[in-house]
């Protein structure tokens, strides 16, 4: 029994740690969660349906991350967030592109932590851990179509958040905005309003220049 458990624990612990890290953005917290999941796995090992092991592990990990995040929420500051370890990242050939990619990765992982549940879990499981839709559906205990909706909404939330950051940076004069500033026809300037709908629910409106 112990041999089987150790084999399963070894197979799962990196996945648990990855999920916990991207949820909490703190290595020690992620380690604590991973350890706790492994303890619970050991405690429930004999009663567990081994076919549903992965889903069980994901559910327990999610619950523990949620509880820990709730505990930490009062004291959490963005400055406390830890970045993805550099040694875990693939080396880039172009240093300039590497710096830009690193900056985008930092913003992306920071934005990911801000995404509410269950969208964040769906994104981590699908995009980072490469689970299939049906596996995510089992893990989240939701229908397949619901999982697809979670993923679309989660990505859209990320896009809104990153767009807002870009706009804010552009207003402060740090960087050029990603969206085009001027249209050719009629001398009209598009005014982008990110994350907020204007008028009759439109994202993109044009005003006279």
């Amino acid at each position, binding site marked *: 029994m112990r041999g089987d458990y150790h084999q399963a624990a070894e197979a799962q612990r990196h996945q648990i740690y990855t999920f916990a890290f991207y949820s909490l953005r703190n290595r020690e917290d992620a380690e604590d969660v991973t350890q706790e999941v492994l303890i619970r796995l050991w405690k429930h090992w004999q009663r567990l349906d081994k076919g549903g092991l992965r889903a069980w592990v994901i559910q327990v990990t999610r619950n523990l991350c949620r509880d820990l995040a709730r505990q930490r929420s009062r004291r959490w500051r963005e400055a406390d967030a830890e970045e993805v370890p550099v040694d875990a990242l693939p080396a880039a050939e172009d240093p300039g592109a590497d710096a830009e990619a690193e900056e985008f990765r930092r913003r992306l992982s920071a934005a990911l932590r801000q995404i509410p549940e269950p969208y964040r879990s769906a994104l981590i499981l699908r995009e*980072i851990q490469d689970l299939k839709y049906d596996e995510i559906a089992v893990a989240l205990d939701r229908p397949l179509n619901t999982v697809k909706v979670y993923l679309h909404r989660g990505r859209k939330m990320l896009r809104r958040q990153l767009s807002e950051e870009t706009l804010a940076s552009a207003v402060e004069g740090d960087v050029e905005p990603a969206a085009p500033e001027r249209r050719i026809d009629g001398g009209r300037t598009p005014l982008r309003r990110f994350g907020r709908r204007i008028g009759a*629910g439109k994202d993109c409106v044009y*005003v006279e220049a």
Partner: protein
Amino acid sequence: MSKHEDREMDCERADAWLEALVDGEVDPVQRRRLQQHVERCRACAAELELAQRIRAGLRALPVLTCTDRVRPAGGEVTDGRTTPFRPVPSAPPIRWRSVLALAAMLALILALPRLLSDRSAEAPSTPGSPPIAERLEGAPTEAAAAPEAVDPALVAAQEAEVKLALAYLGQITDATRHTVGHEVLGEKLMAPLGRSLRDVLLLPSSGGFGGERDAS
């Protein structure tokens, strides 16, 4: 003010479909409409580019390797020997001793005016008044029915102490990141403590600090 739109696709619809387009989950007709719109609308083109960057960026985030600090529970089997399990570091334990001490202090402070008033009422009792045992059986004396007034200054001072104790209790529970609920303080702590105090001091049950039990 006019939004950028064409007959089949406007910016709002395009925005709703961008993620599906990136996922390759739109039918060919819808895909063609989206692509036509994006070719004309540079703002939506920028949004599509961002959606694609996000998708690629998420996929580029690595699966991390857990350190060896985290080990399987139940002991690790290596070379036939089992190493003991190292318990997970967790949140600091609740300082129940401090909480209990404070709660006891709080109960005493709350009970003090009542104790003083009852005792002061008991002191001038006449030689012919019934013994305490009889009083516990439900026959209140005249002295008990008309206790002396408590000094308002004493009550005010004790109220201040109660507030201080409550504030301190709040600080401790905040520092330990635990909440002591009303059900714990009231039913599990205050009421039993109140009953104990009554039993020890042989006071009649008067409903003070949550005690519901009859003195009998």
